[in-house]
């Protein structure tokens, strides 16, 4: 009995020590993907230090803001219908849907679609609660919103809280694959809205095309988040799709036959870009249905 007691207390102490490192999504081993030179320089510089490395995805608010600033009009038909909500019956589908609805909510609120924003906010909070995520928004802010339903800054601030609380509470509950699904759901939905809003032949859409192709830089973070959870049967096909998407991103920009001083849009391979748009559409279909 006494030895069993010792074992239990030892286990507890080990677990408590381990808990100090749970925040770290990645340790030094991830420097491998940064290239040999970078790895060598970083390791040399930090040889005497413990380093924690995090890869951060752009949030739905950030991408929605970039879409808005590119000047394209709001399209309600691109949002994931709230009628799909009853179909999300598993934790995985709810986590994905939460990311998707947070993206729709960001897009609607930044485009000052207040009624839609309130409806999607309620859907997001209800989905979060169904996943065991509590107090996504403080009561003081809910009360403030009731008397300020057209306050864009307040609505976007609430969206930011729902997103942060949901993702962080899932991580705190050690539900890392659900957290990853939520993040990827949000990113894919934003990319779907952006790519469905763009016409590759339209000169005035050049800025949005550039913003879409710049998202290639987010793939490193997305791959890292998904790699950690590849054992999950839902995440595995998403990861494979992301790898295919990465190739399309690379092929979208022509590397030769470019005249000096040519516009950015002239460097875009339209055929590949259309494939990229279709790929994102397929990924979104997989996630929301």
């Amino acid at each position, binding site marked *: 009995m006494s030895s*069993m007691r010792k074992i239990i207390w030892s286990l507890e102490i080990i677990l408590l020590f381990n808990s100090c490192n749970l*925040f*770290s999504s990645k340790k030094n081993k991830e420097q491998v993907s*940064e290239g040999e030179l*970078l790895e060598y320089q970083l390791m040399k510089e930090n040889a005497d230090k413990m380093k924690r490395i*995090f890869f951060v995805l752009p949030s739905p608010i950030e991408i929605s803001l*970039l879409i808005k600033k590119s000047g394209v009009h709001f399209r309600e038909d691109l949002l994931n219908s709230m009628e799909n909500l009853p179909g999300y019956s598993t934790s995985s589908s709810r986590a994905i849907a939460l990311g998707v609805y947070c993206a729709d909510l960001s897009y609607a609120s930044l485009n000052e679609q207040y009624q839609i924003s309130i409806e999607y906010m309620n859907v997001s909070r209800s989905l979060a609660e169904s996943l065991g995520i509590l107090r996504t928004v403080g009561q003081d802010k809910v009360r403030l919103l009731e008397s300020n339903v057209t306050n864009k800054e307040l609505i976007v601030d609430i969206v930011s*809280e729902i997103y*942060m609380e949901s993702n962080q509470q899932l991580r705190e509950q050690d539900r890392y694959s659900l957290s990853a699904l939520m993040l990827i759901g949000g990113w894919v939905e934003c990319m779907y809205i952006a790519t469905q809003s763009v016409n590759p032949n339209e000169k005035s859409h050049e800025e949005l095309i550039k913003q879409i192709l710049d998202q290639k830089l987010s793939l*490193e973070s997305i791959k890292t988040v998904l790699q950690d959870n590849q054992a999950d049967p839902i995440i595995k096909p998403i990861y494979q799709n992301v790898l295919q998407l990465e190739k399309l991103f690379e092929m979208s920009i022509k590397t030769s036959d470019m005249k000096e001083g040519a516009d950015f849009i002239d460097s875009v391979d339209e055929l590949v870009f259309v494939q990229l748009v279709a790929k994102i559409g397929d990924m979104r279909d997989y996630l929301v249905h």
Partner: protein
Amino acid sequence: MKYYLLSALLAFFFSVNLVFSQCRDFAKEHCKPKLENYIHDGNYNGAVLNQDEEVELHKAFFSGQKYRVVVGCEDNMPTIHFKITDSDLNVIFDNEDSNYTDFFDFELDEAKTLIISLDFVKNEDIESEEKSGCVSILFGLKL
């Protein structure tokens, strides 16, 4: 026997969650207000950091968007040193050159992945300071 095991697991669960939520509350209450008229992007980047540890964040930033980076740590921890470099390790900002300010505003001409590294300034008088504490890095966006 069952009760010992249960109490051990409960103690573990509550201690981990308490530390987690304390750091999240710290970020919301102490760091988020420093974003001022920038909107928080919704990402929480926080950790309990020992004095001899370093945190590094890799994130893509895009053109046409004004950003604010805010760093913060709990009281009784040493001053935070943070540095922003690009992927070729060119230094874009080092708060050591700006009196260890806790924020930096910037806008990029072209999209880039930036690395934000954070550690503590070495202090001889470590007796008065905690060995570890919550640190957080938040990103703000100009609407």
